[in-house]
């Protein structure tokens, strides 16, 4: 990924041991519209709102809560276009999994691979981290409802309920 002239990582450590690009990405998330998720006994709910700059905006086509597999979906807080890239990659990875195993990709595996992609963008040449935190909701064959948060750093957490964004 990235231009051939930029084979070095733009995300570098500060003296205090922080990766400032990731901190700033988290700021972008904190300024994004609220998204939340709650895991219940028999399912998970994720939600966000759509607020537009003008009454003339046609909001119908804009999707924020997106299905990824038959058993999982995403919602986000942060930079919308970055989110769409992650949804595309996650869908493709889930389909590749299905092709290999003829089984729906489990939510946990989906979270791990998406988180892995996000981490790559903190340690590759010429790219910046994704400016989104994701909430991943789903249920596998075992019927257990699951809710995960994935951050720009690639760190992920399981939640019973949580909210991200403003």
């Amino acid at each position, binding site marked *: 990924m990235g231009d051939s002239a930029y084979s070095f990582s733009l995300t570098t450590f500060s003296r205090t041991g922080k990766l400032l690009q990731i901190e700033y990405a988290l700021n972008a998330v904190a300024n994004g519209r609220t998204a939340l998720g709650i895991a219940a006994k028999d399912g998970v709910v994720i939600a966000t709102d759509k607020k537009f700059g003008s009454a003339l905006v046609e909001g119908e086509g804009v999707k924020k809560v997106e299905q990824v597999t038959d058993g999982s979906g995403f919602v986000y807080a942060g930079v919308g276009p970055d989110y769409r890239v992650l949804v595309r990659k996650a869908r493709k990875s889930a389909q590749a999994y299905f*092709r290999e*195993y003829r*089984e729906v990709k489990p939510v946990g595996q989906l979270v791990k691979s998406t988180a892995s992609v996000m981490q790559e963008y903190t340690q590759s040449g010429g790219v910046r981290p994704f400016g989104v935190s994701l909430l991943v909701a789903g249920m596998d064959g075992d019927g257990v409802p699951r809710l995960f948060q994935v951050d720009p750093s690639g760190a992920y957490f399981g939640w019973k309920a949580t909210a991200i964004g403003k």
Partner: protein
Amino acid sequence: MSILEYNGAAIIAMAGKDCVAIASDNRLGISYQTVAMDFKKVFKMNDRLMVGLAGLATDVQTLDQLLRFRMNLYELREEREMTPEVFTNLMSNMLYEKRFGPYFCEPVIAGLDPKGKPFLGTMDLIGAQAMAKDFCVAGTCDGNMYGMCETLWKPDMEKEELFETLAQALLASVDRDALSGWGGVVHIITKEGITSRELKGRQD
């Protein structure tokens, strides 16, 4: 002689009542010359799944290693066992990846699904799957094996009868085939686990 017949093999898997059994012969040859009488062709993947590989011996061994590799990674990542259906599809995918330079191997997959029901599957060397409820065969005497199985198999056999039937079918099939034989081994998979028995056959 075709490459699939170079080393010789005979594999049969049969379904019984809540159990499956898979058997193979023991011969390894280099064309007409027998080189080993204890060559392993059936491999345990987990306590409820075994795969028999018929064909070129180097590919039999390599595929066993590759399947082990994939299984181990799957179990570590997913923290669960692979079901026979998923395994069959994985194998089909692996074989098709080499569509234009294939592994010369035809697998027979025998296991118990998560509900404990028998699962039998087979495929050609490039991954075309076929599942069966009764029996699956592969090897240099597959015609013989089909005939024996069709005649001897009946539904819902308990594991002792399944063992006898499978053993008779295998031994009679390999006796008329120069490239397979030298005894055999039968594995019976039930929900309690896997039991294996050696078969004494004609050593020629």
